[in-house]
């Protein structure tokens, strides 16, 4: 069984200084985001436009996808459709085999993480080099990214230094980020130059042009795509937007929300393969059409993967991405993943205080905290909740339906806590582990009111 978020989070917090560091590092990103968006007076309008464009796109999605396919094909791009993650991997494997390719670089694509492409290919003897610096670091360490924009945010420079010493032969103990990045630069530029196939993600696919946009800061998607003879771009079908002019809205929203930058360093618009190049797009469903049919949850498909909800989430910052045990962590992951596997991910919608900060930072206005609440109802309805919780909740329902039982229980409870406090003050009570219980008063407000309430008025 997959370990649950609460347990993994508890492990993470064991190292409190490191937890503080993780929290502060991500809060710093959130603050950069705040500074950037406060420089745009029309920010809230921009979010509204982003949201409405995505709502419109989802409401006409089948048409837009057909239009995109037609235009892209006319541009010389080969379109593939994958109903599942498995099929996505098979399609890519076939292209690799057909071209007899050995050297593959891949820039960041959360979809390929979702489909476990690297594992799939590795089992078939094919190595993929992740070219985003953060992804390369976690790949060396055989870890999963812990954040969709900042994959190695859970690691300190000492960790990276050790990893690079082992894999890139850098000086032992040299923790300078500049030095370490330079080492990765040399290593990866060699990989780019010799690459035969480049895999990238897709940030936006434009129905009216049949082209697509990929955003990076490092330039790694471009270094790969423009070097290799074959380029495969992988996209979830929800990446479709209707028109080129809509890119203006999303490119204004994306980087400001993600890292507080005004725009990513490179926003590359691919329209046609270059001379002699083969270009493929794999359009993936993998549960998305089911999510589209869930009225309460469909607008999670508006997500543009900026990770602003990660950075602002007080739970994510103190539990780390790996505690979410899925490829997309954080609040958005907690509303996407139950759709993929409700049972395995039944803990995730509960890994939130429902504080609502995620909804406030979301550039396309996904009501994340409301969907977390609704997933909780769905998970209980489907029976994916432990029996003790169920019994407790049923008891509570009775208690609060009958005022007399409520009063009696309250009275006994307070009496017990006063007279024999060890009944609640013990390590079996999770509240008491690191917190004192409230001091129970002799009388409830109601008791007081019955005695004094009316005299107040005189």
């Amino acid at each position, binding site marked *: 069984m997959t370990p649950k978020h609460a347990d993994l989070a508890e492990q993470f917090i064991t190292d409190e200084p490191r937890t503080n560091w993780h929290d502060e590092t991500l809060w710093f990103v959130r603050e950069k985001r705040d500074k950037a968006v406060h420089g745009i007076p029309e920010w809230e309008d921009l979010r509204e436009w982003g949201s409405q464009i995505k709502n419109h796109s989802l409401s006409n999605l089948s048409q837009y996808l057909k239009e995109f396919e037609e235009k892209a094909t006319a541009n010389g791009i080969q379109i593939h459709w994958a109903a599942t993650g498995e099929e996505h991997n098979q399609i890519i494997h076939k292209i690799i085999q057909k071209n007899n390719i050995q050297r593959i670089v891949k820039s960041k694509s959360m979809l390929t993480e979702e489909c476990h492409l690297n594992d799939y290919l590795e089992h078939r003897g094919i190595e993929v080099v992740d070219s985003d610096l953060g992804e390369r670091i976690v790949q060396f360490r055989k870890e999963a990214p812990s954040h969709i924009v900042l994959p190695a945010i859970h690691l300190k420079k000492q960790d990276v230094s050790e990893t690079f010493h082992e894999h890139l032969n850098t000086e032992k103990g040299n923790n300078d980020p500049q030095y370490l990045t330079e080492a990765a630069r040399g290593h990866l530029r060699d990989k780019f130059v010799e690459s035969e196939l480049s895999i990238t993600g897709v940030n936006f696919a434009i129905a009216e042009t049949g082209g697509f946009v990929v955003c990076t800061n490092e330039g790694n998607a471009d270094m790969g795509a423009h070097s290799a003879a074959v380029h495969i771009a992988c996209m979830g079908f929800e990446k479709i937007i209707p028109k080129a002019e809509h890119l203006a809205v999303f490119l204004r929203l994306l980087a400001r929300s993600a890292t507080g930058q005004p725009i990513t360093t490179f926003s590359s618009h691919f329209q046609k393969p270059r001379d002699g190049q083969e270009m493929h797009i794999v359009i993936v469903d993998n549960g998305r059409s089911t999510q589209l049919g869930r009225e309460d949850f469909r607008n999670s498909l508006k997500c543009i993967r900026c990770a602003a909800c990660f950075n602002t989430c007080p739970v994510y910052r103190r539990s780390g991405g790996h505690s979410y045990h899925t490829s997309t962590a954080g609040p958005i992951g907690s509303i996407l993943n139950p759709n993929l596997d409700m049972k395995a991910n039944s803990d995730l919608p509960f890994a939130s205080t429902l*504080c609502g900060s995620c909804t406030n930072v979301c550039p396309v206005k996904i009501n994340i905290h409301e969907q977390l609440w609704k997933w909780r109802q769905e998970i209980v309805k489907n029976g994916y909740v432990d029996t003790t919780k169920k019994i407790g909740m049923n008891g509570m329902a009775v208690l609060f339906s009958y005022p007399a039982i409520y009063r009696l229980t309250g009275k006994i409870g307070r009496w017990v806590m006063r007279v024999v406090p060890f009944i609640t003050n013990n390590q079996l009570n999770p509240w008491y582990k690191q917190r004192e219980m409230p001091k129970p008063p002799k009388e409830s407000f109601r008791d007081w009111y019955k005695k004094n309430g009316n005299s107040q008025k005189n």
Partner: protein
Amino acid sequence: MKVALFIPCYIDQFYPNVGIASLQLLEKLGCDVSFPLEQTCCGQPMANSGFASLSKGCDANFVKNFRGFDYIVAPSGSCVLHVKEHLHDDKNPLEAEKIRNSVYELTEFLTDILKVKNINARFPFKVGLHNSCHGQRMLNLSSMSERVLPAFSKPQDLLNMVQDIQLIKPKRNDECCGFGGTFCVFEEAVSVKMGKDRISEHQANDVDYITGVDSSCLMHLEGILNRQGNKIKTIHIAEILNSSL
């Protein structure tokens, strides 16, 4: 103006002084206040745990107790939000709807309905205001650091009317304390860590008290403070607004 006082279950049982302060404050401000005696709970603990389907009996009891008033006021943002968003009663749908539209959190009621401009209260202490999430982000009691909108704060405006109070903002003015209903036990480790982090920011400001509109957040922070042996105390905003120290 007929006002019903809704005292959430845990305030009734553990924090009667918050109920008393709310009652006295509203009466001082000229409201005709009743406390329906058969009230229990709003049903939020069940609903937020995924058991909204179990809250029917609780909801029916709520409607039975709170129908027929002009306003329903509670010293808790979280419980008010739950009623506003989720109270339903198949047998009395119209009454449930009327309650949903006339339930108010205390500071919201003082600001928007009573339009209070002066409060006769004194509280000569250093105080840090904890913005509880449900009050702030969902009931819109104050502006939010994430949004690009003009700044305001209903609880802070009221506290500024109190004599000799010294309000100091924590560094992260609107971060969650980690209570989160049953989150506080099912995600105990994160919950406590979040609470400790809130406290350390107030501690850096050397406050005497942490206040807020939700006793649930305060109960959680108080539990940690007491375990730490910390001298900072928690106090509900109603108690400050009703204080004559």
